[in-house]
C-alpha cells in the first residue's frame, strides 16, 4: 500500500511540471488555434539554459527561472512574429509543417551547441529527502511542484486581473469580437505565444534537477503535452492543469503496476478512454 501511496505522491509532484507545460500549449492553441509542435523543444531549451547558467555561473536552476522564462518568451514571440503570423490563414497541414520545421531547427541547434550526451544539473540538495509517515518525499520534487503551482497561479492572475491578460482571453473566446472592439490582434498573438513559451521554458528549468536530458528529449515532452491538453480539453487552461496532474499520477502508478518503461502507455490509454467517453476532454465545453 505504501508503494502505491508513494507512487501517487511522486505522480502528483511530477504532474505539477506537466501541468505547467501543458498550460503553455493550451494557451497557444486556445488563442491561435495553432498546435505548437516545437513545444517540447522549447522546454529543452529552457533546460539547457538553466544547465548553462548553472555550470558557468553556478546559478541554481530554481533561481534561473526568470531568466530562462524571459529568453524562451522572446524565442516564442519571435517565432510567432516571424513565422506563425504569416501562415495563420494557411491550411492546417501547412501550419503543422512549419512548426515541425521549427522543432527540427531547435532540437538540432541544441545538439550543435551542447552535444548529444545526457546532461544533468547536480544541485547539492539533489538527493535530499524527508519522510512523511511511511512515504519518502524528494526535496527537489517538492520544490519543483510548489514552484510550478506558483507559476500557474501567477499566469492565472495575469490572465484574470490585467488588461493584457483580458485581451488574451477575449481573443481566445471570440476573435472577431475582440477585433471589433479594437484589440490589436497581432500584439495579443505575439504575447500569447510568448507567454505559452515562457511557461514551458520555466517548466524546463523546474525539471532539470529531477532528470537528465538530451537534445532529443523534446519529442517526448511534446507528445506528453498533446496528450494532456486533449485529456483536459483543448484550449482549456484549468483542464490542462488537471490533466497534467492526472497524467503525472497515471504514469507514476503505471510504472509501479506495469514495468517502468511502459509507464507512458497509461497516459495514452487514458487518452483513448477520454476520447471514448468524453471526447471534449475532462473540462472542455463544446468543441
Amino acid at each position: 500500500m505504501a508503494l502505491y501511496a508513494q507512487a501517487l505522491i511522486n505522480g502528483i509532484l511530477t504532474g505539477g511540471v506537466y501541468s505547467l507545460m501543458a498550460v503553455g500549449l493550451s494557451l497557444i492553441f486556445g488563442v491561435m488555434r495553432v498546435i505548437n509542435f516545437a513545444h517540447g523543444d522549447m522546454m529543452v531549451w529552457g533546460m539547457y539554459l538553466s544547465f548553462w547558467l548553472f555550470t558557468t555561473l553556478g546559478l541554481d536552476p530554481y533561481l534561473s527561472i526568470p531568466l530562462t522564462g524571459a529568453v524562451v518568451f522572446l524565442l516564442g514571440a519571435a517565432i510567432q512574429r516571424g513565422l506563425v503570423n504569416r501562415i495563420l490563414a494557411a491550411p492546417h497541414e501547412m501550419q503543422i509543417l512549419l512548426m515541425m520545421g521549427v522543432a527540427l531547427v531547435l532540437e538540432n541547434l541544441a545538439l550543435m551547441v551542447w552535444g548529444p550526451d545526457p546532461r544533468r544539473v547536480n544541485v547539492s540538495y539533489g538527493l535530499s529527502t524527508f519522510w512523511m509517515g511511511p512515504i519518502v518525499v524528494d526535496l527537489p520534487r517538492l520544490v519543483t511542484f510548489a514552484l510550478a503551482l506558483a507559476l500557474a497561479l501567477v499566469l492565472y492572475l495575469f490572465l484574470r486581473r490585467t488588461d493584457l491578460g483580458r485581451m488574451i482571453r477575449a481573443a481566445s473566446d471570440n476573435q472577431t469580437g475582440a477585433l471589433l472592439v479594437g484589440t490589436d490582434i497581432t500584439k495579443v498573438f505575439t504575447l500569447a505565444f510568448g507567454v505559452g513559451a515562457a511557461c514551458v521554458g520555466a517548466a524546463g528549468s523546474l525539471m532539470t534537477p529531477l532528470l537528465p536530458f538530451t537534445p532529443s528529449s523534446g519529442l517526448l515532452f511534446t507528445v506528453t503535452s498533446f496528450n494532456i491538453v486533449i485529456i483536459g480539453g483543448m484550449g482549456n487552461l484549468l483542464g490542462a492543469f488537471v490533466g497534467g496532474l492526472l497524467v503525472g499520477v497515471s504514469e507514476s502508478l503505471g510504472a509501479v503496476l506495469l514495468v517502468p518503461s511502459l509507464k507512458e502507455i497509461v497516459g495514452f490509454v487514458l487518452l483513448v478512454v477520454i476520447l471514448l467517453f468524453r471526447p471534449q476532454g475532462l473540462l472542455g465545453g463544446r468543441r
Partner: protein
Amino acid sequence: MSRRLGVGLGVGALLVWLPFTVSSVWQNLLITTFYFAYLGQAWNILGGYAGQLSLGHAAFFAIGAYTSVVLHTHFGISPWLGMFAGALLAAAVSQGIGYLGFRFGLRGFYFILLTLAAAEILRLIALHLPLLGGYTGLFINFTPNPWQFQFKGKIWYYFIALGFLAVASAVVWLIERSKFGAYLVAIREDEDAAEALGVDTFRYKMLAYAVSAGLTALGGTFYAYYQFYLQPNTVLSMHHSVDIMIRPIVGGSGTILGPILGSFLLELLGEFSRSYFAEGAAGLSVVIYGVLLIVVVLFLPRGVYPTLLGWLRRATGRRA
C-alpha cells in the same frame, strides 16, 4: 491526348533507363524517393483527399512490416503473400482508430493527436514484445530469393518501388475520378455541408482510412526487406509518421502529383543538406533541412504542385 501519351512514354523510358546509368548512391536515393512517394500517396488518400490529417501512419507501416516478417520467419510464408495479411491487419486496426475518432466526429487536431497516440501505444507495446525483438530490434537474415522478396542488387528494389508507386498512383487516380473521391473532397471542404447533402461521411472516412492504412502497410513490407532490420523506435516513432506525411504536404496534398513532387524535392533538399553540411557540427545538416522546410511553407503555402500549376496558368494565360 497524343502529346500526353508522348510525355508519358518519354517519362516511362527515362525511368527504365535511369537506374542502369547512375551510381549505387543515386540508385538508393531514387529508391527512397519512390518509396516515400508511395507512402505519401497512401497517406494522401486520407490526409489529402479526405482532409483527415494522420500523424500515426507509422503504426500501419509497422504493422505491415512486422506481420510479413513474423509470418515469414516463423511460418515460412513468403512476404509476397504476408504483405497482404499485413495490409488487412493494418486496415482492421485503422477501423478501430477511425471508429474511436469519427464516431464522435473528432475533427482536425483531435484526430491528429488521436492517431499520434495510437502509434505511440503500438510503439510501447512493440518495444515489450519479445517476438518483435524489443529494444534490440528484429534482424532479418538475408537469403537472396526473389520469391521471398529478397534480392541481390538495388535494381530489383528500384523497379519494385517504382511499381508500388505506380500502383498507388493508379489507385489515387481511380479514386479521384470516382464518386467516392468526390465525397472525400466534399468532406474535406465542408464536412457539415457534405453531411447535410446526404453523404455518409462516417462511412467514407472509414473507407478512406482502410485503403490508406492497407497501402501504407504494403510499404512497410518493402522497407523490412530492403533494410533487413526493424526497430520500434525507428519505424514506429513520431519522426517516421512525420516523414510519411511531410512529402505530400510539401508537394501539395489532395493532388496526385503532390506526393511525388514533394518526395523528389525533399529527397534532394535532404541530400543537399547532408552532403554540404554533414562535415560541420553534428546536427547542422538537419538544421539546414528544417530551415529549408520553413522556407518552403512560407513561400509555397499551398504546396509545390498547386503553386507550379498557378504559375503555369498565368504564364500561358489560360486554364491548363
